[in-house]
C-alpha cells in the first residue's frame, strides 16, 4: 500500500509498465474511478515511468549514435579524402594552366613539358616537373596520407622507400582524429561513483606504506598506473581493453568539481578516456590501494551506461554516459 492510495505499490508499478493482466487492470481502473488519491497515485507512477523511460531512450540513442559514428568514421574519412582529391585536381589543374600561360604560346613550350606529363620517370625530369604536376600526382586518391596535406603524397609518389607508400587504404580512426568531435572523445570526461560496499576492516583497503605517506600529504605527483585485471564477465569483453589507474584524491583537478565532493569516502570521482579500443578509467581515491589490489580490481557492466568497479572490498557504481559501458551488451 502507498501512503495515499489503496493500491499496492507493485500493482501501481505494473500498471504503469503495462504488465498487468486485463482482469487486474480492469479492477484497478474500477477502483480508481471512485478513489481520487488512487488516481493521483496512478498518475504519479505513470509520470515517473514515463520520465525514466525517456532517460532510457536517450541513453540508448546516445549509445547507438556512438556506434554509428564509429561505423561512419572510415566512410567519412574516404569522403574527406575524395573532397581533398577533387580540390587538389582543381587547384593543380589551375596551377598547371597558369604555368603553361606563363611559359608563353604553345609553340614556345619546350618538349620536356609534354614528356613530363606522359612519362615522368627520370629523376632529373622529375626535378624539373612543374608544381602542377606534383599536385596532380599528389591528388591521386590512392594516397591516404594526403588527407592532412598535399606534401606527403608528393613525397610518397617519388620516394618508394617510404614505408607508408603502397598502403593507401590505411586510413584509420587515428588519422581522422583532428576532427573536433574526435578531440572531444579523446579528452574524456569526469564521472562520480557511489561506493556500494566498503567494510571498515576490509583487508584490501589497508593502506600500504606508500599510500600512508600519500594520505599524510606527501602525494606522489605521477599517477600510479597499473593495468587492471579485468574479470571474466567484465565489460571489456572481447572488443575493448580496460585500463584502471588510481590517483590520490588530493590531485583531483578543480574541473572535476573537487569542492563539491563529499569527503566521506562514499563517492569516488573518476576520469574516463576512450582511446581507440581502450577505455582508461582513473579513480581518485582518498587512500591509494596496493598494487596487487589494483591488479585484482575488476570492472563489470551494471546498466546500459553503468559499470561496477570492484576494488578491494569496495564496489563502486559508475555511470559512464560518455562511452565504454554503453558500447557493451546488456545481458
Amino acid at each position, binding site marked *: 500500500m502507498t501512503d495515499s492510495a489503496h493500491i499496492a505499490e507493485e500493482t501501481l508499478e505494473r500498471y504503469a*509498465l503495462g504488465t498487468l493482466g486485463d482482469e487486474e487492470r480492469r479492477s484497478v481502473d474500477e477502483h480508481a474511478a471512485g478513489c481520487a488519491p488512487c488516481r493521483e497515485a496512478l498518475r504519479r507512477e505513470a*509520470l515517473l515511468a514515463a*520520465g525514466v523511460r*525517456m532517460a532510457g*531512450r536517450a541513453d*540508448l540513442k546516445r549509445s*547507438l549514435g556512438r556506434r554509428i559514428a564509429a561505423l561512419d568514421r572510415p566512410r567519412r574519412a574516404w569522403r574527406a579524402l575524395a573532397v581533398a582529391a577533387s580540390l587538389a585536381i582543381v587547384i593543380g589543374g589551375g596551377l598547371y594552366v597558369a604555368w603553361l600561360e606563363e611559359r608563353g604560346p604553345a609553340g614556345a613550350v619546350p618538349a620536356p613539358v609534354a614528356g613530363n606529363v606522359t612519362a615522368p620517370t627520370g629523376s632529373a625530369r622529375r626535378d624539373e616537373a612543374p608544381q602542377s604536376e606534383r599536385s596532380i600526382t599528389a591528388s591521386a586518391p590512392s594516397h591516404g596520407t594526403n588527407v592532412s596535406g598535399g606534401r606527403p603524397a608528393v613525397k610518397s609518389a617519388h620516394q618508394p622507400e617510404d614505408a607508408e607508400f603502397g598502403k593507401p587504404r590505411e586510413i584509420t580512426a587515428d588519422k581522422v582524429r583532428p576532427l573536433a568531435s574526435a578531440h572531444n572523445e579523446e579528452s574524456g570526461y569526469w564521472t562520480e561513483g557511489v561506493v556500494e560496499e566498503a567494510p571498515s576492516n576490509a583487508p584490501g583497503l589497508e593502506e600500504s606504506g606508500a599510500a600512508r605517506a600519500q594520505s599524510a600529504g606527501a602525494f606522489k605527483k605521477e599517477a600510479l598506473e597499473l593495468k587492471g585485471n579485468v574479470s571474466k564477465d567484465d565489460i571489456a569483453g572481447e572488443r575493448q581493453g580496460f585500463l584502471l589507474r588510481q590517483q590520490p584524491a588530493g590531485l583531483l583537478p578543480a574541473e572535476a568539481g573537487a569542492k563539491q565532493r563529499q569527503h566521506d569516502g562514499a563517492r569516488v570521482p573518476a576520469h574516463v578516456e576512450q582511446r581507440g579500443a581502450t577505455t582508461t578509467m582513473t579513480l581518485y581515491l582518498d587512500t591509494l590501494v596496493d598494487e596487487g589490489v589494483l591488479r585484482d580490481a575488476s570492472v563489470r*557492466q551494471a546498466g546500459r551506461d553503468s559499470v561496477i568497479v570492484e576494488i578491494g572490498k569496495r564496489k563502486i557504481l559508475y555511470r559512464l554516459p560518455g562511452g565504454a559501458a554503453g558500447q557493451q551488451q546488456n545481458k
Partner: protein
Amino acid sequence: MANSPPFASRDAALLDRILKGEEEALVELYSENRRPVEALVTRGGGRREDAEDVLQEALVALWENVRTGRFRLSARLGTYIYATARNIWLRRRARTQREITGEEIDPPDGEASPLDAAIGEEEAQIVREALDELGEPCRTILLLVYWEEESMDSIAARLGMANADTVKSRKYQCKKALAALVKLRMSRND
C-alpha cells in the same frame, strides 16, 4: 518455417538479438534502412543529419516495443522501421510548422505507449532531469526497473545486491527521493 520468405527468418533473428539486448542488431538495421529514410527526409526538406536522427529514434522505438512485448511483426521489419521513421519525421515537421506559423496541425500517430502519451512531454522531461540529479545508484536501479523491466532478482544479481528484497527496499527509497526532486522542480516551474 521452410516455406517462409527468406527475410522473415532474418527479421526474426534480428528481433531475437534485440530481445537479448544486443545493440549491434540496431546498428545493422541502421545501415540497412539508412538510404530509404534519408530519401524520405531529404525529399521533405530535411537534412541528412535529420534523417540520421529520425532513424535512430525509430530504432529506439523498435527496441523498446520489442523488449516490452508490445511489438508484433506483421510486415517486413524494414517496412515497420520506415513507417515508424515516417511518423516521427511527419510529427517533427508538424511541430516545426506549428512553431513557425502558429498553425494547429494534428500530428500523425506516434509510437508512444498510451501511458506515455497521457503524460506531457514537459513533465516527463522534468522527471528525466530529476533522475539525472538523483545520481547513482538510484538512476541505474530505476532504469533497470522501468526501462529494462528487469526482475528484482535479476537487478540484485547485476548490481551485486544481497537479494530481491534489498533491491525492493532501495527502489522504494529511490522512488521517494525522485518524487521529492520532481515535486521541487515542478514547484520551481510554477
